């Protein structure tokens, strides 16, 4: 049913989604924390900026990323000048694109959860001798579990389905940048509907099982309000 290219694409997609989610958590968590606790005047602006990439159509966003990351673009040019390789048509490029595009889906749930946790438990942890990092990981994070679950599932699913950005900066290189969303798209465009159906169904089932597993696991947590 599936040709090796499709399988390749599936594996690549999972790699991309997983990498993206990890990076999003690493970047998004401190950002969300800052947004949840800051009283800075800049907060509103940063908050709005995070959500901004969403309003551009993904292909267009991808187009601008292409300009940005290309050898003549500011980022790509700098990379090349520093002896690096431009990011377009590489897995790393896909990751950058996916991260930019899925950032708000990770930051917003985390921010809301951190705000809901509030200062109370953190103050308690501090009086029990837990330092900043300690209480962040042992109190704030587990109490914000729901936010993390949302962040991970939305970030993951959105990256899997994400397509315009990846299409634009990926170059559709089998095994390197051809993710499953593009593969399905190709099948549809080529009027190869049967193939598209099979691949979509597989993706849906896989995603469904993953999501169920995550949500089911989540039931064990006692987060805020749980």
């Amino acid at each position, binding site marked *: 049913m599936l040709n090796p290219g499709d399988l390749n694409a599936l594996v690549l997609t999972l790699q991309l989604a997983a990498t993206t989610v990890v990076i999003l958590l690493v970047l998004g968590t401190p950002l969300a924390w800052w947004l949840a606790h800051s009283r800075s005047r800049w907060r509103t602006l940063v908050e709005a900026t995070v959500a901004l990439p969403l309003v551009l159509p993904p292909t267009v966003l991808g187009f601008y990323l292409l300009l940005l990351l290309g050898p003549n673009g500011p980022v790509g040019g700098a990379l090349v000048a520093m002896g690096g390789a431009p990011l377009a048509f590489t897995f790393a490029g896909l990751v950058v694109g996916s991260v930019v595009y899925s950032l708000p889906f990770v930051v917003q749930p985390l921010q809301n959860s951190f705000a809901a946790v509030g200062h*109370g*438990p953190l*103050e*308690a*942890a*501090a*009086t*029990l*001798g*837990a*330092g*900043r990092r*300690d*209480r962040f990981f*042992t*109190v704030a994070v*587990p*109490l914000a*579990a729901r936010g993390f679950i949302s962040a991970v599932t939305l970030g993951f699913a959105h990256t899997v389905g994400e397509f315009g950005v990846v299409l634009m900066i990926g170059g559709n290189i089998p095994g390197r940048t051809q993710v499953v969303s593009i593969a399905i798209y190709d099948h549809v465009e080529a009027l190869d509907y049967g193939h598209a159906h099979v691949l979509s169904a597989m993706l849906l089932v896989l995603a469904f099982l993953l999501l169920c597993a995550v949500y089911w696991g989540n039931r064990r*947590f*006692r*987060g*805020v309000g*749980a």
Partner: protein
Amino acid sequence: MSLALSVALERPGFRLTVDQTLPADGVTAVFGPSGCGKTTLLRCIAGLERPRGRIVLDGHVVHDDADGIWVPVEARRVGLVFQDARLFAHLSVAGNLRYAARRSGATAAERDELLELLGIGALLRRAPAELSGGERQRVAIARTLLARPRVLLLDEPLSAVDEGHRREILPWLERAVAELRLPTLLVTHNLDEVVRLAGHLLLMDGGRVTAGGRLTEMLARPDLPLARREDAGAVLEARGVGYDARHHMSELRCGSTPVWLAGEHVPEGRAVRVRIHASDVTLALESPGATSALNRFQGVVETVTAEPAEGRCLVAVATDGGRLLASLSSLSRERLGIEPGRRVWAMAKTVALV
């Protein structure tokens, strides 16, 4: 260990200004009306608020904004039992206790002793949301003590705890605090708790300390708001002199007056404090006959604080064992002719160890 405070904190409509050095060890009770700043004061000491001023804990400056010194909460090793318990919702009771113990190195034996004492052994696997109000407070106390603090701040720790548990917890807490020489600040609205635990008393009102000093002195001052409480009364220093095993009574001396204490065994020579409620003290002009009032102090009326609107007055009687407070109706006072300088017998049926 000592605690020197000189802090000022502004809030809309509220201003905390405290400039006070608290005694080296033992319990200092903080007493005052709701909203007077007790919780805020504890938060300043713990490092949860950042007031202007200076806080010196055991000789270490933990906060001094003139010098830019700031020791963060977690490094102060200040144990704070919050008014609202603040158990971690994501951990079981056992998990909450473990959280503190892991970071302090407290042993399983310490934990088990606390579980036993606070009566929370059966709750270990419960989530905080599944506890009653009093259970939550007791778990919070255990958690704080397992963190092995160097200073203990208790914010109404027993307000939701019933008398039975309270009677078990208080003496133990008293002992623990004494053994560990833990300087402790105790916020409570319960004078019994104060008398039981505290050696010093801080009276607050409107963000300021209105009076502070040794508990025995503070309690016997008829001019303080304490004296206006129904449970007002003096605390005297006494010393064990004998024990009547058959009646399970200890004989004490309070100055030259023999004082009988039921239900306790006070070893000879041991210094203790006894509390005598003002409402329990009966005055007489001559030595009375056979009554069940065993304790008879001879003394001289020092002051009479009349509160005519209430038909009562508070009489301070100087004895050689210390100053006693007696609450009298104005009628009795008139009938007996109680005036400053008058020699009287003060009879207290009951004295209680504190």
